[in-house]
């Protein structure tokens, strides 16, 4: 399994265990010392993105790696074998149909009552219409059913967009400060773009940039994005009066992780999945709830050092999305073999 190498992105705030800050105030003090007076571009090398709505800052990192995802052939086979995908077929009917020799959707295409729907599902599979298939599976089985994630196998690399936001609070009346986006490039490359609000006038341009990318990709991958990231993005876009096209397929990994590992794990936060499943523990990581405080500190002092841990934290989150995705696919393929 090839995965994205998270080590590359270890926050470089003194990873050396001897000098590791043990309290937030010591951490702050260290940031102040290390970065005071340093120009923004030097603390976080990157470039300025401009669009019709203004400008914001971007950090880009590219690495080799790929995304392990569902096997297309296997996914098709599994789904064609699930007669329960058809409305009106519950376990009782399924047993009766089995006796009558209707075991797959292909069989059902000759059934007087179910032929239409089974044909429709086959055609959707052939066309790779994962948007509709997600709905079919979600309605008949579960929205976090492994075969929903399996649909990822029907997509091209270029369809995927991994997204994670850092915000000033949970309320969409508060601004967004960092958006991390990962995409899969040709030749096994992964690109992580992080858009940063240098001050709030940047937010609108950042939103426009993120919305454009969401619109350009068929598949959005997030962690808890159905409850947080996407509604937040929707709320902020509405606040500024700009449009947001809702993604066709949205894999919110939180729900799959719950299904896969609930019971085995204490919690299903991204952090605990990283620890128990990916075997990663973050050495110096800024807890999410401190994001607003550090951002204010950055605004007040102009010291970009206070922004850096937020950006590092965000990058780690985005990278983990890719790795958690792979772990889920692996988990379910191993179990069903």
């Amino acid at each position, binding site marked *: 399994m090839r995965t994205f190498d998270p080590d590359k992105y270890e926050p470089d705030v003194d990873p050396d265990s001897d000098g590791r800050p043990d309290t937030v105030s010591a951490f702050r003090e260290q940031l102040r010392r290390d970065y005071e007076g340093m120009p923004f571009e030097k603390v976080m090398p990157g470039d300025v993105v401009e669009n019709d709505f203004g400008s914001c800052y971007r950090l880009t990192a590219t690495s080799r790696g790929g995304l392990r995802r569902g096997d297309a052939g296997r996914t098709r086979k599994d789904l064609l074998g699930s007669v329960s995908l058809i409305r009106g077929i519950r376990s009782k009917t399924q047993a009766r149909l089995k006796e009558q020799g209707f075991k797959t959707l292909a069989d059902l295409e000759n059934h007087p009552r179910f032929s239409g729907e089974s044909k429709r599902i086959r055609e959707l599979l052939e066309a790779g219409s994962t948007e509709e298939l997600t709905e079919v599976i979600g309605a008949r089985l579960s929205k976090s059913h492994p075969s929903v994630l399996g649909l990822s196998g029907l997509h091209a690399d270029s369809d995927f967009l991994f997204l994670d936001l850092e915000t000033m609070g949970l309320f969409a009346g508060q601004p967004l400060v960092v958006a991390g986006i990962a995409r899969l490039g040709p030749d096994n490359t992964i690109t992580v773009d992080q858009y940063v609000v240098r001050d709030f006038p940047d937010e609108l341009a950042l939103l426009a940039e993120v919305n454009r990318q969401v619109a350009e990709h068929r598949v959005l991958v997030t962690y808890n994005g159905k409850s947080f990231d996407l509604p937040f993005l929707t709320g902020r876009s509405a606040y500024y009066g*700009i449009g947001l096209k809702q993604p066709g397929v949205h894999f919110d990994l939180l729900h799959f992780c719950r299904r896969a590992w609930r019971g085995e794990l204490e919690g299903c936060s991204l952090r605990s999945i990283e620890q128990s499943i990916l075997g990663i523990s973050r050495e110096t990581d800024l807890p999410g709830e401190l994001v607003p405080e550090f951002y204010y500190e950055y605004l007040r002092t102009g010291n970009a050092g206070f922004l850096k841990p937020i950006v590092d934290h965000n990058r780690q989150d985005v990278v983990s999305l890719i790795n958690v995705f792979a772990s889920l696919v692996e988990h379910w393929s191993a179990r069903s073999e």
Partner: protein
Amino acid sequence: MADILSTLDALRQQRWYAGQIADIEPLPSRAPTYAVPDPALPEPLASLVRKMGIPELYSHQVALLGHARLGRNVIITTATASGKTLAFNLPVFETMLESRTATALYLYPMKAVTQDQLKVLKRFEQGLELELHPAVYDGDTPADKRPRIRQRSRLVLSNPYELHQILPYHYQWQQFYRNLRYCIIDEAHTYRGVFGSNVAQLIRRLRRICTYHGSNPQFFLASASIANPQELAEKLTGKEFVHVGDDGAPRGRGWLVLWNPLANENMSIHVQTQHLVTHFAGAGLQTVCFVPSRRLAELISRWVKERTPELAVSPYRAGYIPEDRRSIEAGLSSGALRGVVSTDALELGIDIGSLDCIIIAGFPGTFASFWQQAGRAGRKLQDSLVVFIGYADALNQYLLRNPALILERGFEAAVIDLTNPYIIKGHMACAASELPLRREEIDDAANPNPKARTTNEVRMTNAPTTSGNPESAAPSPKSLVPGPDVRLAAVRELEKELILRPTPVGWIYAGRTRPQEEVALDAIEESAIEVVADGRVIETMDRTRACREAYPGAVLLHQGETYVVKALDLEQQRAEVERKDVDFHTQVIQREEMRLLETQLQRQLGPGITISLGRLEVTATYTGYRVKKYDQLIATHPLDLPPVKFPTVGIWLVFSGETALELQEQGCDFTGGLHAAEHALIALAPLVAMCDPRDIGGGSYRMFPDTMLPTIIVYDGYEHGIGISEKLYAEFDRLSRIAHSLVAQCACERGCPACVLSPRCGDANEPIDKQTAVAILGRLQPTG
């Protein structure tokens, strides 16, 4: 039904009757005035109205409809049960019949009322065979029902508290706001003082969201009778209004009985109240008795039942579960229940039909409330009775002696302040979290002139302006409403605190919390202290009031229940209280110092007397408190609280040295006279400025340092004021006239609680000179 007059006569034969009837005033009866809408109502609506048992419309209903059809905003102030609900629903449903998309928002001050109104709207919906999905959307609406209401309900009933919370999510209500044609605000007179001043800002936020989504709703307000309906409506919404006040509904013969319980010294007021309920309900008159507290509602109805078990009487108050409330309301409507002893919970908009007899125990604070309650009496054209039991204090006793004041109605004005910087600051933060706040909105947010803003100004997409600074946008012409400078100052302050940040599209909100949670509609934000009983916040009060009423050891009255304060933490902004029935009350001992800061208006009252309106600073030191049982002093305890200093608005009367000398030469105690006059003015101020006596403070000085002359000061008890003093200044002639007659008419010799002795006086009513007060108040009267 028993003959009302003979029932009244029979009262005089009771053993406990000792001449308590001070007066009986006839209430005017009136024949109905009908009118016909032109053009006629659309047929389905006309026939539905007929089916509802309404053969003809009253003139005020048709008047409202006429204005509504012309696109005007209307405030209607006809009597209780005169069909106000039908009046504003006619234009709404006329529109609903024509439009497939129009929506309407109904705001009520209390949740209990919305359920009742929902039934009314459903009746219209069904009768007209429309699909409008009317729904209540408030704190009790389950989360899983909310999305559907937002998406498809075209009639939404809610309250200001809920609206305040949901405004930031306006994008989820796009359909609703885009098509919002009408906003109905019922019981508008309840939106006054701090609450009203907050709601006025909230309505501006609502209008801002509507403008953004491309609508400009018409407003219909309904209110009890007040002196300034049009002013209230315009301040509350920032729009121009017409007033419909001529009541076309009929009224039968009625009598107002003024009952002075003090005439019988051997029986407490509450026992007399119980006797009156038993007497009238027992004689077959369906009776509702309004009492000032929950506890009294329970107590008196229990006494009635103990005395006359066969009489079906029930208490009614807020806090009952909805089923219980419904069954009481149904019992009243069907007649099965012969009497109810209620708090003011039954006063607002709840449909219980009309009754034969209303007893009002204690003046409910405002004439508006008084007539809301009294208006429950009188079924169609039958005879009815209103009994007013005057309590022992100055205001009640004055009203007993001057029923004309009650009969005059619409005497008091609801005050709203549009410039209180604390209130504005909170709402500016909220507004900026709902949509970026543009520079031109600062000048224009409270814009009273709908013409200045049209829907084609709405920008659904915000293109960046050329500069990075919202300030550089050209300011629009100054609006006539006060406040642009206050709003700008608030924005500056918020910007300094990093709560607002300038961006090219306007100031955006960048604070740490959801501002809607921080801004309480019934408090002045920055100093809100939460009063907590059993972990539950029962009310919030500002710092000054907390020091005055919620100091450790204080007995606090909340909705008629007594609570004992265990601790007051001014830093944590929290007062811990404990529910406890006690038979004593407490009274803070305070020393107040006032400093005049700025005179804004001034005029001559009489020779050698001026009145001024302006800003002042009050420093209050709370040194201790007295524990009293009835009027008996039991103990005095010291208090250790930091002094409270706050800027506010007040009026001051300054007397020339000659005036003082003249009176002194006549052998008067001038200092005691000033003090007594101050008490009388404060006692009656609520009748002019529609506020609670606790909302006002004051002081009197033989020689005031800032004027070097004898001075009486009356001020708003809230930081930066809430508009009371402005009203007192404008209506001062009226205030001084009734204060003068209060004191002059009182039969006591040296002053009593019914005239110049105040139960809240920090100086224990010392010195006090009633006769000099009469002379001083007499000199305040306009000459000629």
